[in-house]
């Protein structure tokens, strides 16, 4: 698995901010330095945002070599919808698209075209299948993973419509195969991403499909180069992005685009946790769709973006509400055919399904953890290196730390 969050030990002062913030309690302090348990990390980027010493940086590997050192491959770029919100007001969106080509790509497939298709698929699935309520969006890779680790009983509520990035990758590949008679291995698909969790969606997806995107390029890493091209670019014709599809970059955009009227749009880690709690308590079953996005303001809040999320969402809304929609979506006519063939749907892999302990095992495990926890002071001070006393008790139960790591008890002795 590629790990998209780099950690600089020298910058870490052991302040515990990230450890307390982490929504899956994946961070512990070991010898006064933060340590991420990779198997629990959902790549939401909360630690990156909160660290006062900038010890965490989002990163994606190998894309640069892949982009520049494989001249024989047919290279496709899929720019995130948030990209159009990263330039000054009034920047021509065709200039942006053409500049991506100048960076060395053979073809640009806009995510907003795929979003057009995904919105239709969402709407149909919600209208036709009324058994599960509420459905939860599967576009945010961090939110899906949060559900997997913290709310496993809600895995069934996920809507399992492929996200626009994946749809774009599949359709762009198909196009290149047919048009130039290429083999799949001669095509390289790059996603220009606002979000570190997309790397995980590409290398280690939740679901039974083989990802169509090969490499994830952090938006901020090519922004400078791209901006220089945008300034120089004078070609103002292109296959126009879909302006309503572009709204997926902003929270609430996908529900709006799908034409839903009974939905909740919730964004920001703390907020989605509150809503997921509600759903888990059996409430909100009168709601059709929950658009839960881990970053504040939606994808424009992702850590790879350059511009402030509020400014970016304003720019996106400005573009999609004020420009004339000249979009010629290359694949919109194929929607019926694709939908019938099950193109948009996927399932969980067998091993990803919610596998609970037998009640007997669960009771025994709980008793042992509680026994340990009852001996701890209950201050949740974090000095032992775990975020709460209960988390420390779980670590001790799992043989991952020593009971005597508790500083408070040691001082009392």
């Amino acid at each position, binding site marked *: 698995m590629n790990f998209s969050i780099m950690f600089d030990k020298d910058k870490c002062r052991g302040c515990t901010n990230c450890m307390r913030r982490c929504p899956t309690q994946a961070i512990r302090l070991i010898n006064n330095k933060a340590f991420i348990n990779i198997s629990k990390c959902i790549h939401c980027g909360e630690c990156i945002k909160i660290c006062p010493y900038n010890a965490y940086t989002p990163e994606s590997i190998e894309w640069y070599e892949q982009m520049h050192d494989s001249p024989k491959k047919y290279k496709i770029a899929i720019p995130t919808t948030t990209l159009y919100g990263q330039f000054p007001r009034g920047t021509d969106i065709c200039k942006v698209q053409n500049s991506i080509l100048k960076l060395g790509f053979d073809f640009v497939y806009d995510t907003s075209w795929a979003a057009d298709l995904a919105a239709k698929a969402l709407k149909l699935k919600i209208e036709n299948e009324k058994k599960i309520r509420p459905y939860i969006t599967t576009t945010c890779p961090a939110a899906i993973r949060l559900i997997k680790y913290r709310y496993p*009983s809600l895995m069934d509520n996920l809507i399992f419509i492929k996200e626009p990035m994946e749809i774009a990758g599949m359709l762009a590949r198909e196009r290149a195969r047919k048009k130039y008679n290429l083999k799949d291995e001669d095509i390289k698909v790059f996603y220009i991403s606002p979000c570190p969790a997309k790397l995980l969606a590409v290398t280690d997806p939740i679901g039974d499909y083989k990802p169509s995107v090969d490499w994830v390029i952090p938006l901020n890493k090519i922004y400078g180069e791209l901006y220089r091209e945008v300034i120089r670019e004078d070609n103002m014709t292109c296959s126009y992005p879909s302006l309503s599809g572009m709204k997926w970059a902003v929270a609430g955009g996908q529900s709006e685009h799908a034409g839903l009227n009974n939905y909740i749009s919730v964004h920001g880690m703390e907020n989605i946790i509150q809503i997921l709690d509600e759903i*888990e308590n*059996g409430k909100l079953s009168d709601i059709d769709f929950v658009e839960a996005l881990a970053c504040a303001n939606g994808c424009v809040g992702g850590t790879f973006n350059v511009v402030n999320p509020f400014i970016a969402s304003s720019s996106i809304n400005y573009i999609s509400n004020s420009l004339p929609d000249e979009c010629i979506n290359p694949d919109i006519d194929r929607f019926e055919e694709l939908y019938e063939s099950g193109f948009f749907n996927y399932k969980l892999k067998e091993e990803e399904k919610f596998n*609970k*302990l037998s*009640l*007997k095992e*669960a009771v025994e495990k709980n*008793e042992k953890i509680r026994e340990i926890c009852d001996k701890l002071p209950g201050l949740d001070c974090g000095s032992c290196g775990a975020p709460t006393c209960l988390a420390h008790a779980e670590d001790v139960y799992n043989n991952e730390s020593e009971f005597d790591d508790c500083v408070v008890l040691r001082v009392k002795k």
Partner: protein
Amino acid sequence: MTDRFLKRYSYNITANDFMSAGKGSSSIKSNLKSLGIDANIIRRIAIISYEIEINIVIHSFGGKLHCDIYENKIVIVSEDIGPGIKDIDMAMTEGFSTATDSVRELGFGAGMGLPNIKKYSEGLEINTGSTGTLIIATINL
């Protein structure tokens, strides 16, 4: 599937203590959640145990709330010392209540307690007399 007993959670409930009413049932809820029990079942149990808890607070002189976990079922047990239920058939009627006005002013005593407990459980047993009441509600897993 066996109906082997695994674990009992117990809570003391004080009569007329409206401030802490609900603490027992919310603790049951979080305990069941940590055992990985299905959210819909937890919700039913939460309703049942809350109604039972409130009944003890309003109508008895004090009692206990238990949550018994078996391999194939969960049983909510309420035992209290008090005047008992005078007319069980009437008490099972929606909207019938013997709560005093002062209790109703607090927002309780709508007459939905026992009807709700019956509605959300799969088996309900009530033993009542002039010295107290024992209620056993069963929810199958």
